[in-house]
């Protein structure tokens, strides 16, 4: 009970401490967008006879005709009251856009992370058990390859082989077969929604759409996970308590999995947190290649168009997620290592 209470207190405290950081992010992004060259009003005033009048009208609509401090004050007020402005690119409120797109990005990132972990941890263990062996080199090679090939190349390659040549994968656009009926909208996570309404065919279709993009992302983050598992496990395997465990005659796998791996997981957990946050923010290319309606491609389109509101909303969202993920990792720390005190 006290553990739960401790965790709860810690969560509240950490969330409180993150408010100034988030505020800083909001103000910084706000200023950065306005310092960058490129005027959204001019860009969007692209009608066949757009003149200065139209540019001024757009500027007025976006509130850009007001002094900067007033714009900032209005924006902060909007954020505090739960509004993030309107996107010019899609014409929708930013909050609605992000709410609709975030589950797509989260689902993809989660699934990719699961695949990456399922591949990286066994690879890391195998490499650590036989350092400098052929297996170790093979693992290093695979990891290097994963990092070296940019995601849009591996994504296009996977599409070419599995969709274009072999015809095994469904058409690589979006989260669901375009000709199929609209998916149920409950949580926004299609795999969960289809299960909730008991539509197994729909679930399999959504799952099929997810595989290629998720693998593309998993390949890219394989290296940090596998390398960290290997390094951390190597260090633990050389420590005294492992020697002791071996000397009392415990079986090899028990020593490795139960004693060594658990202790080696701490740095890996840290990396998982970083990798996950990075995946959410940086999977733009994967989202572009697979027409995945996620937040990354949304923010990139907005950035290219100097569309302030969506970019600011996106950065705020990612910052908030970063805070949450770090918090979750800290809580997991406590579970993985009882010695980590709550403070």
């Amino acid at each position, binding site marked *: 009970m006290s553990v739960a209470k401790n965790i709860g207190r810690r969560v509240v405290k950490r969330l409180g401490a993150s408010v100034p950081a988030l505020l800083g992010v909001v103000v910084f992004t706000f200023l950065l967008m306005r310092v960058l060259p490129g005027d959204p009003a001019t860009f969007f005033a692209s009608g066949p006879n757009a003149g200065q009048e139209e540019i001024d009208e757009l500027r007025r609509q976006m509130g850009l005709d007001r002094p900067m401090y007033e714009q900032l004050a209005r924006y902060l007020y909007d954020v505090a009251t739960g509004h993030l402005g309107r996107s010019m690119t*899609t014409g929708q409120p930013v909050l609605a856009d992000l709410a609709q797109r975030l589950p797509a990005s989260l689902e993809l990132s989660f699934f990719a992370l699961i695949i990456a972990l399922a591949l990286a941890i066994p690879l890391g263990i195998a490499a650590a058990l036989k350092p400098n062996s052929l297996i170790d080199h093979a693992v290093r090679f695979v990891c290097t390859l994963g990092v070296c090939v940019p995601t*849009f190349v591996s994504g296009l390659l996977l599409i070419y082989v599995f969709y274009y040549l072999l015809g095994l994968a469904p058409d690589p656009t979006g989260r669901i077969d375009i000709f199929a009926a609209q998916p149920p909208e409950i949580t926004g996570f299609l795999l969960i929604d289809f299960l909730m309404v008991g539509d197994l065919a729909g679930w399999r279709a959504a799952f099929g759409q997810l595989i290629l993009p998720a693998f593309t992302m998993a390949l890219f983050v394989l290296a940090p996970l596998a390398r960290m598992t290997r390094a951390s496990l190597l260090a633990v395997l050389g420590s005294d308590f492992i020697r002791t465990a071996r000397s009392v005659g415990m079986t090899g796998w028990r020593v490795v999995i139960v004693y060594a791996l658990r202790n080696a997981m701490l740095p890996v957990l840290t990396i998982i947190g970083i990798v996950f946050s990075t995946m959410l923010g940086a999977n733009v290319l994967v989202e572009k290649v697979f027409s995945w309606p996620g937040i990354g491609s949304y923010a990139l389109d907005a950035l290219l168009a100097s569309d302030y509101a969506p970019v600011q909303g996106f950065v705020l969202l990612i910052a908030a997620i970063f805070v949450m993920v770090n918090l979750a990792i800290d809580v997991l720390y406590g579970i993985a290592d009882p010695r980590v005190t709550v403070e």
Partner: protein
Amino acid sequence: MKFHSPKITRREGLKAALATAAGAALLPASVRSADAQTRSETLRHVMAGTINSLDATVPGSTREAFGAGMSIYDRLGSFGRKEVEGQWTFDFDNIRGELAEKIDRSADGRTFTFHLRQGATWHDGTPVTAADVKWSLDRAVSAKSLSAAQIASGSLAKPEQFKVVGDRTVEVSLDRPDRLALANLSIPLSPMFNSVLAKKHATSDDPWALAWLKDNTAAGGAYIVETHRPGQQTVLRRNENWKNGPEGKLPFFRRVIAQTVPEAATRANLLERGDADLSIDLQASDIDALEQRGRIKLVAVPQTNGFTGIVFNTRLAPFDNPKVRQAVAAALPYEDMFKAALFGRGRRLFGARWTEVPSEAFPQRLPLNTDLAKAKALLTEAGYPNGLQTTFAFAAGAASAAEPAAVLVKEALAKIGIEVTVQKMPDAQFVTLQVERRLPLFMESGTAWLPAPDYFLRTYFSGEHRWNFSGFKNAEMDSLVQAARFETDPAKYAAACKRMITIAATDVPTVMLWQPNQDAVMARNISGYTYWFHRQVDYRDLVRA
């Protein structure tokens, strides 16, 4: 905190993860749910951009929104289409009634009477009235939308010009017989709205319901919006009660899916696999290979109402000097640029040899030819015997063609002593600097919706608006564009246009390079694709064999 048996949970977790990965690898291809019949009557259009507004007249609308608007809304008139060398293009000289079944033009050319089609209804089933048309036209000239500036180019500017003269009759009067008045009522920016429905959603801040119409429709066109997810897809359903097509025919496709697929390679893959039916924005470099593999049909139409050119800022030294502009124009390696940038996929606007303008058509091929000796002489004459330094800018969005061209420009201009720094900029930044007239030399493209020579010259070579990219100011040109606009005598009109073309050719505010093809790639069983002045797909034209 106690963990007596962590191994079990962890091992199970690992097992589950491995099982998921294994399952992923074994899963068969997706389940197709739509049956063959509806698939063949469904058109799937994949595009790079997004339909960001259902009302094309809202400021900030994308080009894709213009295309969608044509199918969702009707206009009073519509351009016809004609088949030239086996390809359909729009016919600017042949305007038929769309929502109007008959259009009368008075002898002095100053009054148009529109007789609305008997039995025409809106999507909600209510009949189209003259009051709806009056409201729509008033909105076009009064609301803060894209329409006002555009249709002013047809001398349509005040609500008083539009008069209801019967239940189904509307009269439009002009101060002067503007050549482009009727044409301006046939474009994406003059849609007809169901005014009863739209007015219900008007507010005191927004009396013309711009905000509501952005995400909703008050329309009566050939297609009804079924779902609209900006940035993802828009699904249209055929309006079975539509009577305003040519000969009253319904369009072929019952359903149209317009889907955003940002990656060009993915769009190409989808088309070749037969999963998508149409795309008009693939990469020029892929087109040849696609055509050779023969799984798709290619309709390549030069964009005859557009151009790509190298623009000089005529309000900034050194390019305010016509001699410097002529020197650059004589130094450019036109044919190499055409091959490198476009893979030859388009129509040349350079390389003519005439001294007297042969016709009043515009854009037409101008006497632009590579002549390094002449270029050097001109530059010396202009007072730059030792050359000069400048920058050459283009937008990142146009890089696929502009980047190879820029390399050749840099190389060629170095030969006459002009040192060029190439600047590739994010689109928004490029546009901003261009509108502020701070770029000395850059590459840009333009299209004129209404391909009348005087309109083209008026848009791109005179005035203070942004489309006069070069900031060109020439007293004779400025007076000629105004005169030509209201000229009713064809011979005088032709003479004025020829004179303006001569000015554009000798003063070279912009080096007109070429007209890129619009490469429409489609499934082999699709026919009827038509090139429209708005450069978007009109779904009403398409048929699947």
